[in-house]
C-alpha cells in the first residue's frame, strides 16, 4: 500500500499550473530565417498581434513532470509492505500471575493474543515471543506453528521486575505488540518510547497484600532459638486484614492477625524455637495474587561450621574455638569444613581443600608497635589489640605476599594475612601472633580475635549472620493502568519495513531535467546556427 511520510508536501503540486503559465511568457529561444515572412501571417502566437492566447512552450510538460516528481520525492513516498514478522513482548512480571475469573492475567493475555492473531490479515510469517523482563528469553514460531504457543511456558514473576527497560531487541524489521497488565510504571515508560503497533492489556483487580521480607538469625542468647522478622506490604488501594502464619515445615509455629492500611508496610518479629530445615511465612487467606503470599528461607546456612583443631594448637586457642557459638568441633579433619592448625612444617600444596587458619608457632618476641588493621576496617575496627599483649614470630620466608593480602600488621611486621589459593579453593588465614601468650589469652579480645580469624577464613560474619528472603514491594502492585503508548498508524517501524520510493522519483526527475537540458542545448545550437 503506497503512503507518504510528509504528505503535506503534496499540496505543492497545486503550483504545477504556475509552471505552465510561466512558460507562456518565456522569450523565444530560437530565431529562424524565412524567405517570406508574410507566409506566416496567419500563424498563432503572434506577439505583435497580442490578441490571441499564446500557448506555453511544449517543454512545460517535461518540466512540470520533473517538478511533480521532486515534490513527490519530498513528500517521502513509500510502498508499504506490511511486516510479516511479529514480536510479542510479554510482560511476565509478578502481577501477571494475578488470578481473575479463574485464570491468571497472563493466561488471559495469551487468549487475547490468539484471537488477535486470528483476526490479523495478512497472516504473520513469523512470531517471536520475548520476555519483557528478560529480553534474552524468547520463543520463535513460524507460520503454521502458532497453535503451539503455550501459555504455560511463561510464568509470571520468573524474572526480576521490569526496571530501566531498554529496547535493544526492538528491531525495525518486525512489528511489535505488547502483552501487559499495565501495573508496572517502567513498562509504561518503555511503551511510550518503543514503536508499538498494538498493546493487549488485561487486569481489573487492584487489591493485594504481600510478604516482602522474611529474615532469620540465630539467637545470640539461646542458640536453639531463632530471631524471625517478617515484613508485610499492602499494595492495594484499600485497607486489608490478613493472618500471618509462621511454619517450620508443616508445623505451625505462630499465627498473627495483621491489619494494613493502603500502602502500609507492617513489620512483625519474634523469637521462635525452630527445629526444621526451613521456616516459612504465609498470608491467609489467599488474595488475587497468591504468589507473593509466601516466603521461605533455608536454615541450613545457620547450622554450625564443622571445625577441626589440630592438637598442636594450645589449650587457649582450643577453648576459644570450642566456645564459638557457630563452630562445632570435630575430631576428624575429614568431616570439617574449617581446619585450625599450628603445625610448624606446612606445605602449601598439601593443604586440604577446606578453609584453614594457620598459626605460625616459631619463637616469638614482643612486637614494637601497636597492631593496625590494614583491611576489613569496617568489620574489625572495633577490635583493638594493644601491643603489650602480643608477641609474634618472624614471618616465614616461604610465605610470599604476591598472592597474600595483609590484614593486620605492626609497623612493617605482618601479623595476619589472607591467602587466596585460587581455583575456587577456600581461603587460608595466616597469623604469626603467639596465640598462647599469657597476657593475650586472658583478655576478652582474645576470643574476639579468634572469631575474627574464623570469619576471615570462612568468608562469613558467623556471629551476626542473617539469612533472608525478600521481594520488591513494587512487585505486589497489581493495579492495572491503561498503557498510553503512541500507536500511530505510521509508526517508525512501519516506515522502516516500507520500501522508500523517494530515490525513484528523484532519479526520474533528474533524468527528465537532463533530457530537458539536452534538448535545450540542442535548441540553442540550432538557434545559433540559424
Amino acid at each position, binding site marked *: 500500500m503506497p503512503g507518504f511520510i510528509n504528505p503535506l508536501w503534496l499540496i505543492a503540486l497545486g503550483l504545477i499550473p504556475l509552471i505552465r503559465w510561466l512558460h507562456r511568457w518565456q522569450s*523565444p*529561444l530560437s530565431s529562424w530565417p*524565412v*524567405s517570406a*515572412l*508574410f507566409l506566416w501571417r496567419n500563424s*498563432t502566437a503572434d506577439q*505583435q498581434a497580442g490578441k490571441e492566447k499564446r500557448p506555453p512552450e511544449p517543454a512545460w510538460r517535461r518540466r512540470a513532470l520533473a517538478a511533480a516528481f521532486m515534490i513527490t520525492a519530498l513528500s517521502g513516498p513509500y510502498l508499504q509492505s506490511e511486516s510479516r514478522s511479529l514480536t510479542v513482548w510479554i510482560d511476565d512480571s509478578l502481577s501477571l500471575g494475578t488470578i481473575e475469573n479463574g485464570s491468571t492475567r497472563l493466561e488471559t493475555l495469551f487468549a487475547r493474543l490468539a484471537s488477535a492473531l486470528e483476526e490479523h490479515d495478512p497472516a504473520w510469517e513469523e512470531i517471536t515471543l520475548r520476555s519483557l523482563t528478560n529480553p534474552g528469553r524468547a520463543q520463535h514460531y513460524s507460520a503454521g506453528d502458532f497453535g503451539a504457543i503455550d501459555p504455560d511456558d511463561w510464568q509470571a514473576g520468573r524474572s526480576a521486575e521490569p526496571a530501566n527497560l531498554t529496547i535493544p531487541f526492538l528491531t525495525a524489521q518486525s512489528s511489535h505488540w505488547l502483552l501487559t497488565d499495565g501495573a508496572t510504571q517502567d513498562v509504561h515508560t518503555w511503551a511510550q518510547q518503543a514503536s508499538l503497533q498494538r498493546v493487549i492489556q488485561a487486569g481489573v483487580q487492584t487489591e493485594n497484600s504481600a510478604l516482602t521480607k522474611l529474615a532469620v538469625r540465630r539467637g545470640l542468647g539461646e542458640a536453639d532459638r531463632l530471631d524471625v522478622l517478617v515484613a508485610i506490604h499492602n499494595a492495594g488501594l484499600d485497607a486489608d486484614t490478613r493472618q500471618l502464619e509462621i511454619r517450620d515445615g508443616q508445623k505451625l509455629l505462630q499465627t498473627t492477625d495483621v491489619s494494613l492500611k493502603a500502602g502500609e508496610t507492617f513489620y512483625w518479629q519474634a523469637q521462635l524455637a525452630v527445629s526444621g530445615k526451613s521456616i516459612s511465612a504465609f498470608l491467609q487467606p489467599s488474595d488475587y495474587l497468591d504468589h507473593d503470599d509466601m516466603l521461605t528461607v533455608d536454615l541450613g546456612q545457620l547450622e554450625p561450621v564443622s571445625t577441626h583443631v589440630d592438637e598442636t594448637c594450645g589449650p587457649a586457642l582450643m577453648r576459644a574455638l570450642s566456645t564459638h557459638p557457630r563452630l562445632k568441633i570435630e575430631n576428624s579433619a575429614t568431616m570439617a569444613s574449617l581446619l585450625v592448625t599450628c603445625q610448624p612444617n606446612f606445605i602449601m600444596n598439601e593443604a586440604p581443600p577446606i578453609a584453614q587458619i594457620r598459626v605460625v608457632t616459631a619463637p616469638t618476641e614482643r612486637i614494637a608497635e601497636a597492631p593496625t588493621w590494614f583491611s576489613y576496617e569496617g568489620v574489625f575496627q572495633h577490635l583493638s589489640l594493644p601491643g603489650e599483649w602480643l608477641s609474634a614470630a618472624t614471618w616465614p620466608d616461604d610465605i610470599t605476599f604476591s598472592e597474600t593480602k595483609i590484614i593486620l600488621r605492626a609497623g612493617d611486621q605482618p601479623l595476619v594475612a589472607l591467602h587466596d589459593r585460587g581455583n575456587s579453593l577456600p581461603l587460608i588465614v595466616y597469623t604469626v601472633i603467639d596465640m598462647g601468650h599469657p597476657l593475650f589469652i586472658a583478655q576478652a579480645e582474645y576470643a574476639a580475635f579468634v572469631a575474627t580469624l574464623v570469619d576471615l577464613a570462612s568468608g562469613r560474619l558467623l556471629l551476626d549472620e542473617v539469612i533472608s528472603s525478600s521481594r520488591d514491594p513494587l512487585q505486589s502492585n497489581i493495579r492495572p493502568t491503561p498503557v498510553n503508548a503512541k500507536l500511530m498508524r505510521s509508526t517508525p517501524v512501519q516506515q522502516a519495513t516500507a520500501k522508500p520510493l523517494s530515490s525513484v522519483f528523484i532519479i526520474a526527475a533528474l533524468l527528465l531535467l537532463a533530457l530537458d537540458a539536452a534538448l535545450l542545448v540542442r535548441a540553442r545550437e540550432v538557434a545559433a546556427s540559424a
Partner: protein
Amino acid sequence: MMKRAIIEEPDLQLFARLVAPRLQGVVGARGSDPRASRDNPGSGLEFLDLRAYQPGDDIRHIDWRQTARRQQAMVQRFRDEAASDWFICVDCSASVGMHASKWSMTIRLASALAYACLYSGHRVAMLLFNDRIQGLCRLGRGAHQFATLLDLLLEHDADGSVSGPPKWAPENTRQGFAATSKSNLGLCREYLSRNSNIFIISDFLEADGMRSHIQSIRSVAASASAIQVLADEELEVPVTGTTRLLDVETGESRQVFMSEQAIAEAKHTLAEHGNNLRKDCNRLGVRFTACRSSDSWQQVLIEHLRVRQ
C-alpha cells in the same frame, strides 16, 4: 554548387533542338534547320545581300542601281525578322538564395533558356535583379553570348554579391543579418526593348506577388513568361515552440509558435499566393509556370513552352 548548376552541353543541345520550333513560332519554316538566323533572308528591314532576280521575287526589292551596273536584275534581300530578342530576368534576391536548391534550379532554367534561344538564332539578354540591377548582359547572340551569360550567372550569387556561395543558403545562414536584397522586378523595365520577349525567373515571394512590376513589363513586351521557383524546403523550420522568424529580405521579424499547425497555415498561404499569382499572370497574358527546386528543369521548360505554344 555552381558547377552542379551548369548543364552539360549535350543536354543543352538536345533541349534546344526540342524547344527551338516552339521558340520560333513556325516549325520547319526553313527546311530542316529549325534555327532562326539573322543571316537567313527574310522580310526584315535590315539589308542582308543582293542576288539575281528570280521569278516570284517582290519587284519592290529590285535594286535598280545594281541592276544597271551588273546588267542583270538584282534584288535586295533583308535579314529575317523571325529571330527576335529575348530578355531573361533572373531574381537573385535573398529569398532565392537562402535555399541552395532554389538558386541552383534558377541557374539551370536561365542558362537552358538562354542556350535554347541563342540556338534558335535569337538575341538574348540577361538581367540579374534584386533591390537593384546586380548584373546585366546586353542583347547578343552566338556561343560567345552564351558564355557571357553563363559567366554572369555563375559570377553573381543570389543575394547580389559577387562569387562565393549564396549568403542565405541554409548551411551558411546566420543570425543577426542585415537583409536588404529585396526583389524589385520593376528595375528591369528600363533595360528592356520594346516588343521583346521576357522571361522572368523568380520565386515571386513578395506579398503582392510582384503584380505591378509584371504588369509594367508586360506592357512593353511582345510576350512575357514567368516561372516561379520554390524550394522543397521552403517552409521547413526545424525548431519548435515560440520562434522568432526573420525575413531574409526585409529583416523584419515575427514571433510565431512553431507547430505543425503553423506550418500547415503557412503552406496554405503559399498555395493561395501561388494561385493568385497564376490568376494575375493569366489576366495579364503572361505565361506562368510554378516549379519546385527538385523538379526536372527540362520538363519544367518544355511544359512551360508547350503551354506558351
